[in-house]
């Protein structure tokens, strides 16, 4: 159906095309295309001005023409644009050879943070603040301060938290464990000895 329709359209648009073209070409003076309303407005403004003399504007001014003939632009320096020149072999070598420093948190801190987003650094900040003062750093305050939606702020505080670290107390080392086992073994051996007797 699509193909048939397109054929029909093609036929319709090209119908009697040659005759129509000839009719337009045979006209002595072509009809001027209508002006855009925006430019029309400006033209009407100039025409409505009483001081505007159309005939004077159309006439060639001899004095101004003489002035124009005296104006020259002369450049003495040779204009060289480096952008279009082939760079020398030395210039094409890398300028910096140091290994790039790996960023602190594994990503390069963005200069502009889009609205509704946070960086990992800010996220950690939010979580630590909320842990320390949960009554101060509420959902509303966080969404206000970091420009994130209320829903997202709520989700962050609900599902994420910073780990609290528990260090081990002084735990018995392996050598202590050996001592204990030796103590038991010695007891056993003495028991065995008693049984043997």
């Amino acid at each position, binding site marked *: 159906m699509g193909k048939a329709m397109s054929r029909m359209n093609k036929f319709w648009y090209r119908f009697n095309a040659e005759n129509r073209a000839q009719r337009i070409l045979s006209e002595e003076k072509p009809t001027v295309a209508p002006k855009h309303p925006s430019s029309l407005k400006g033209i009407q403004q100039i025409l409505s001005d009483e001081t505007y003399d159309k005939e004077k504007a159309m006439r060639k001014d001899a004095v101004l023409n003489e002035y124009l003939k005296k104006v020259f632009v002369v450049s003495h320096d040779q204009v060289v644009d480096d952008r279009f020149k082939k760079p020398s072999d030395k210039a094409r070598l890398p300028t910096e050879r140091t290994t790039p420093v*790996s960023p*602190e*948190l*594994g*990503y*390069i801190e*963005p200069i502009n*943070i*889009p609205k*509704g*987003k*946070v*960086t*990992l650094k800010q*996220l*950690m900040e939010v*979580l630590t603040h909320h842990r320390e003062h949960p009554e101060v750093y509420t959902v509303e305050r966080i969404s206000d301060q970091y420009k*994130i939606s209320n*829903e*997202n702020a709520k*989700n*962050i505080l*609900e*599902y*994420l*938290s*910073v*780990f609290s*670290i528990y260090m*081990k*107390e002084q*735990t*018995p080392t392996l050598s202590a*464990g050996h001592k*204990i*086992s030796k103590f*038991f*073994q010695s007891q*056993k051996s003495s028991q065995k000895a008693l049984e043997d007797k």
Partner: protein
Amino acid sequence: MLLPRIIHNFRFSRQFFLSAFRKSAYESDGKTTVTVLNKEAGYGVMVDSYSKEGFRLNNGLFVLGPVILFPYTALSWNVSGDHDINRNSLAVFNLIEPKLDLLIIGFGKKSTNSRSLHEEIMAFKSRQRINVEVIPIEKAIATFNYLNSERRWVAGAFIPPEVVQLYEFEELNKAAKKKENYLIDDYI
């Protein structure tokens, strides 16, 4: 008092290491070097081992429960399990700027064929246009470690496994440690 502490110290978990060949692994006959990623400094946070309770990171800390890992940071993830992964608990990954290269979700179950995956995670992935990989936890850890070593901007959302399968030598190690900890003697 002493015994629980000892048990705590020697919590059994499957050792998990990945090795990679950096620079030139092979130089000449008999000169081959291997770099163990987790033991190398400057690679960021990696997971050394896992158990039902949590994960041991390569900085020696043991983290309890589900965890969210970024190349140099670890955050606690307050979800109860695989079924609790939804658009709300994953919202943070969409919030982070710059956008993540890849988000790896480690499922606690052996199979990733679940209702929440299809209804929640895939919907999240397509709506937020984030690259998400959902894999069972054992493989997820390996993937995360390796991608982290390549210095990619990845995040891992891991849930401790429901079942930890030990290999034969690990079982033997476990028995040996148990014997040492509980002072079990063969003679009795």
